[in-house]
């Protein structure tokens, strides 16, 4: 209890509160700019943390990353341009809602369930950190391989178009991830002698290209869409309570999945959003509504990616193993501030830990009012003429891509991926699946190859270990399920056709 009071005192210090507020605004803005990810938002904060007290330093990182993951939903919803890869899974859905004139419902769902996910994720951190950490440590490369494989399969579930085309897009993404020398063998592949390709293709330029640039390209060749009916932008939170009650079960499932995926090092908010959206569609009572502007998937995936953000801190705090790229940066800051990760952090510096928890909760609470302001400001782009919005988007694409590595080559990549995304979209290939392939490619290959190396080329260990066996069974189940449905439908139809013929 003393520790807790001490923690309240630590957090209530004016410098900490100012840091939380400032980094919240900063995270909201950076996350909503296409091309700047939540990781980037945190990385750019590191030099600032040099000058802050330990608690304030950690507070900026926690707050900025939570805000950025939420506000990545905003441009996705309004313009069909996801701000961060974590929003890519359900961008089409949110945009469809906007086209139906329900932008406030979509954005409100993003905000409300992000906050809930963040708080539930934090509670998991408070209550079950040692348990979750134990689970994370039992994952070897074999388990990761199956996990990544399961993540990839979500491409086919999420897609509205032909599943074969979704798989093809996903494979194309995997092929893109082969470029460079960041592979287990350390051998340059498909670099065509271009030094810039040695490091491979980052997901961010690809994401910006296939979503944002191709959207601008589409705007060039299509007439201005009929303006949305001019009316007052409705209340943002009004319907959220109704959604919470209606989709209670998907919401909890999203939270749990987010927590589990977040805890596993290497699989972060991006994957959590994908898996949850796919799960939501698979288990929904009305899967046919998905993709047409149906909030159910937004509820589940929105909760999931923010839940994963909080639980991603578990392995970082206990073992110094980053749960994702954001916590990788956070670990550096923790060390710098003398809050060395390890179990002792929970015992000897309990007040600091409680302070961390409080910041998490606080960040997710102030996300709601600040998010509402942000949404209201951002919604004005819906009223602006397209000829005013799209050129600015393009400029942001160029600068955002450049900002990731101060490298003009990324700007070129954005252009190339824009063309690719444009052609793919025209021909019914889902671009989101391509992004998934690029995001997951390294993880799949890394764990596949290293597992083979460790087992001396033997396949058996992929199934032998208890957890990997379960995951393998789930993978094959998910793989064979649609095939089974398809055969079943086919037989049904044949039987019906036969019935028609005789009857």
């Amino acid at each position, binding site marked *: 209890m003393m520790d807790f009071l001490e923690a309240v005192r630590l957090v209530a210090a004016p410098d900490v509160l100012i840091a939380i507020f400032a980094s919240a605004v900063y995270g909201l803005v950076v996350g909503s700019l296409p091309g700047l990810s939540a990781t980037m938002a945190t990385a750019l904060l590191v030099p600032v943390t040099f000058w802050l007290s330990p608690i304030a330093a950690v507070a900026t990182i926690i707050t900025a990353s939570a805000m950025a993951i939420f506000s990545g939903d905003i441009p996705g919803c309004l313009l069909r341009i996801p701000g961060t890869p974590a929003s890519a899974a359900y961008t089409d859905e949110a945009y469809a809602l906007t086209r139906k004139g329900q932008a406030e419902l979509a954005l409100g769902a993003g905000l409300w369930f992000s906050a809930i996910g963040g708080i539930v994720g934090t509670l998991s951190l408070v209550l079950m950190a040692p348990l979750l950490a134990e689970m994370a440590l039992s994952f070897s490369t074999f388990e990761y391989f199956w996990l990544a494989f399961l993540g990839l399969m979500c491409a086919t579930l999420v897609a509205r178009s032909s599943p074969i085309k979704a798989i093809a897009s996903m494979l194309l993404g995997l092929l893109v991830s082969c470029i460079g020398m960041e592979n287990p063998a350390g051998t340059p592949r498909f670099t065509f002698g271009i030094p810039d390709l040695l490091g491979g293709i980052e997901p961010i330029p690809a994401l910006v290209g296939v979503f944002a640039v191709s959207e601008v390209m589409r705007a060039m060749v299509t007439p201005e869409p009929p303006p949305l009916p001019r009316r007052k932008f409705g209340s943002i939170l009004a319907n959220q309570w109704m959604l919470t009650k209606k989709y209670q079960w998907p919401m909890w499932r999203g939270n749990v999945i987010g927590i589990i995926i977040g805890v596993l090092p290497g699989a972060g908010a991006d994957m959590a959003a994908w898996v949850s959206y796919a799960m939501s569609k698979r288990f929904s009572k009305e899967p046919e509504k998905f993709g047409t502007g149906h909030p159910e998937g937004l509820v589940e995936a929105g909760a999931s990616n923010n839940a994963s953000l909080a639980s991603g801190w578990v392995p970082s705090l206990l073992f*110094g193993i980053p749960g994702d790229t954001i916590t990788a940066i956070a670990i550096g800051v923790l060390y710098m501030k*003398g809050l060395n990760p390890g179990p002792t952090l929970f015992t000897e510096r309990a007040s600091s830990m409680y302070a961390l928890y409080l910041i998490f909760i606080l960040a997710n609470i102030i996300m709601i009012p600040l998010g509402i302001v942000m949404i209201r400001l951002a919604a004005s782009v819906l009223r602006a003429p397209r000829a005013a919005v799209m050129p600015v988007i393009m400029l942001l694409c160029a600068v955002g891509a450049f900002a990731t590595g101060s490298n003009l080559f990324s700007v070129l990549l954005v252009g190339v991926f824009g063309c690719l995304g444009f052609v793919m979209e025209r021909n019914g290939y889902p671009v989101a699946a391509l992004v998934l392939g690029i995001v997951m490619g390294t993880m799949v290959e890394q764990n596949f190859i290293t597992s083979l190396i460790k087992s001396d080329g033997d396949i058996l260990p992929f199934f032998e270990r208890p957890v990997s066996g379960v995951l393998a069974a789930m993978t094959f189940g998910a793989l064979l399920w649609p095939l089974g449905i398809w055969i079943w439908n086919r037989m049904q139809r044949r039987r019906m056709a036969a019935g028609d013929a005789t009857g």
Partner: protein
Amino acid sequence: MTTLNRRSLLGGGAALLAAPAIAPNALGQPKYPARPMQLLCPWAAGGGTDAVARIVAALLEKELGQPVNVVNRTGGSGVVGHAAIAQSPPDGYTLGIITSEICMLHWQGLTEVTYRNFTPLGLMNNDPPGIQVNVASPYKDAKQLAEAIKASTPGKMKASGTGQGGIWHLALAGWLGAMGLKADHVRWVPSNGAAPAMQDLAAGGLDFTTCSVPEARAMLDAGRCRSLAVMAPKRLDTFPNIPTLQEAMGIDFTTGAMRVIVGPAGLPEAVKAAIEPALGRIYQSKDYQDFLAARGFGGVYADAAGAGKALAEADASLGEAMKAAGLAKA
């Protein structure tokens, strides 16, 4: 020099706006530095090299009275950033931080740039690799582990710590070579950095890792693994309980991951004369020492000449290790 003057004057205008107190220098005899400087970092923001670059930049700003911006020029596994530093104009306004990879990339035929394309200014840090095993491992010290390695069939034992051909892979190859074994006697499991390797070690997927001790630190603190030895000439200040390889098994093999502040080749003497002592003072400063201690980074300093010598030695020894491991391009 005419370009330098023109640039300084133009920049002086900018400095006038930014910091009026320093501007008079730029109007008269241009005193270096007269305008904001850049420090290029070939690795991504948030990593260890980035952290060193940022603290050095912050302290350099204090020393020189001009803003020093860290620019992460990433890409190509460090190739792009290292080349960018080497090709920047040698006017003292673009400096960089280079890492041991510069002594490896050219052996693999991935770049033409070597340490000779830079003007070394100061070695700021050096992290030696350790040898870590799972806490449940039967090997109590480096000697036992070495015996087990010698007795095993080639490829049976698995180690990790970084990607294929990375600095910690070469540390393993060098250690095995010093024991008289072939470089691939222990199979290297490439990993995406030290953290996943440590996680796999804790999950029981590996026999040992050869990443640096600070990278293993949290797992050591958590009691999940043990560090048997460190491949350094003397024990580390932050980890005084870990013996050196020499102490543990009488093998004199040392290596490490260096971080050196440099400029492009042909840096004017005036610049060198300003930066080199400034880096020396920074290294001695409490801020920098606190930073090293907090992160557990190995504190090693060398002035310009010493850093150049260290780079040349690393280039030779890493080249040898890479040839032995079959990683160098013939």
